[in-house]
């Protein structure tokens, strides 16, 4: 190439690089004009122009220094990441106005970075939300525990005599799982059936040594007839651990109150015998003294054992030792 042509080519290259190294949002206007003028200059010399190579700013600086004296304006700034940045700008702003696209990898890298940043940001937001949500759940849990503690202390308290004549209160059974049944000894078939069921349940649970032992309790709804001796005779027929509880009418009523036990003595016949109508339910009370669950006539002993097993497994202490 002649010296003139070389100079010319270099100038074109320089201009192209200025294009790529330019900053600012209105660069495309400026660049377009530059490009146009460059193109006009290029066309006559097209056969001389090498393929559009894009040397880095640094290398161009070298070329520039070695070949051309040029005006100081807007020459490639110091940082070399600019063409990279502007490649992005080009992708953003130029709608095909530039005939010299940057290689696809630049736009590709940008996309990946954007994706990563978005994901990180999104992840951050979700993380924050999750943390706040957990805090709220924790708070709700604490409130619930507080409520339960209040209920556990006041609910289902009783003071009765057991079938050995010893006075027992609810406090005596704290720390044990309790199965409670309200009935009476003169019951034709239901109470014996339920107590048999209760016995079977306790026996089944006893077999599983990983579980704590359950304490069955039988509280009478017929204190008039069921005194301590009667209770003693009655409970003998069932599980050895079964404790029968009785007391005065007031004490018995008080005991049943929190469990909403309904009991109504029927009319007395000529023997003075009568049947007491009452709710037929087995109550499960946990070691904190909290009433957890109940089982009616329909549940058989297998179902009840399973349910108790689940409760024991899921049990969380309300009152720390």
């Amino acid at each position, binding site marked *: 190439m002649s010296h003139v042509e070389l100079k010319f080519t270099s100038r074109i290259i320089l201009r192209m690089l200025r294009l790529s190294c330019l900053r600012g949002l209105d660069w495309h206007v400026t660049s377009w004009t530059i490009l146009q003028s460059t193109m006009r200059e290029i066309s006559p010399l097209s056969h001389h122009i090498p393929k559009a190579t894009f040397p880095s700013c640094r290398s161009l600086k070298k070329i520039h220094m070695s070949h051309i004296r040029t005006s100081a304006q807007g020459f490639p700034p110091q940082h070399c990441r600019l063409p990279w940045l502007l490649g992005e700008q080009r992708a953003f702003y130029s709608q095909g106005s530039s005939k010299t696209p940057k290689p696809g990898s630049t736009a590709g890298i940008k996309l990946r970075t954007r994706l990563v940043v978005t994901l990180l940001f999104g992840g951050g937001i979700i993380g924050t939300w999750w943390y706040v949500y957990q805090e709220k759940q924790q708070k709700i849990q604490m409130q619930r525990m507080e409520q339960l503690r209040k209920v556990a202390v006041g609910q289902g308290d009783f003071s009765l005599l057991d079938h050995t004549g010893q006075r027992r209160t609810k406090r005596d059974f704290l720390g044990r799982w309790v199965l409670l049944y309200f009935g009476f*000894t*003169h019951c*034709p*078939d239901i109470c*014996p059936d339920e107590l048999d069921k209760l016995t079977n349940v306790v026996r089944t649970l006893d077999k599983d040594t990983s579980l704590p032992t359950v304490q069955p309790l039988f509280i009478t709804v017929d204190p008039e*007839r069921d005194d301590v001796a*009667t209770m003693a*005779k*009655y409970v*003998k*027929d069932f599980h050895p651990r079964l404790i029968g509880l009785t007391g005065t009418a007031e004490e018995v009523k008080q005991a049943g109150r929190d469990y909403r036990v309904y009991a109504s003595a*029927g009319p007395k*016949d*000529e*023997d003075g*015998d*009568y*049947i007491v109508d009452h709710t037929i339910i087995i109550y499960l009370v946990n070691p904190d003294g909290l009433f957890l669950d109940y089982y009616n006539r329909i549940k058989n002993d297998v179902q009840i054992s399973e349910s108790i097993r689940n409760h024991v497994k899921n049990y969380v202490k309300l009152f720390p030792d």
Partner: protein
Amino acid sequence: MSALNASGRKACWDARDELWKCLDVHQDQTSACEKHQREFEAKCPAQWVKYFVKRRDFLKYKEKIQNEGYEPTEGASKL
């Protein structure tokens, strides 16, 4: 009469079951099951007899409802 213990209860229940079996065979004709009736009344307290009679009626009724269906009463809600 004081409350029956387990063996007493069992005796009563067995007598009751016998009576009911007899009544099922003879379509509730109490005349045919006199013997069972007397045994039943001897072994069980009076209250229990009354109770078991009512219970039998209830069980029969329940069976009828389950097998034959029922007519909803007039003016029942049209849900």
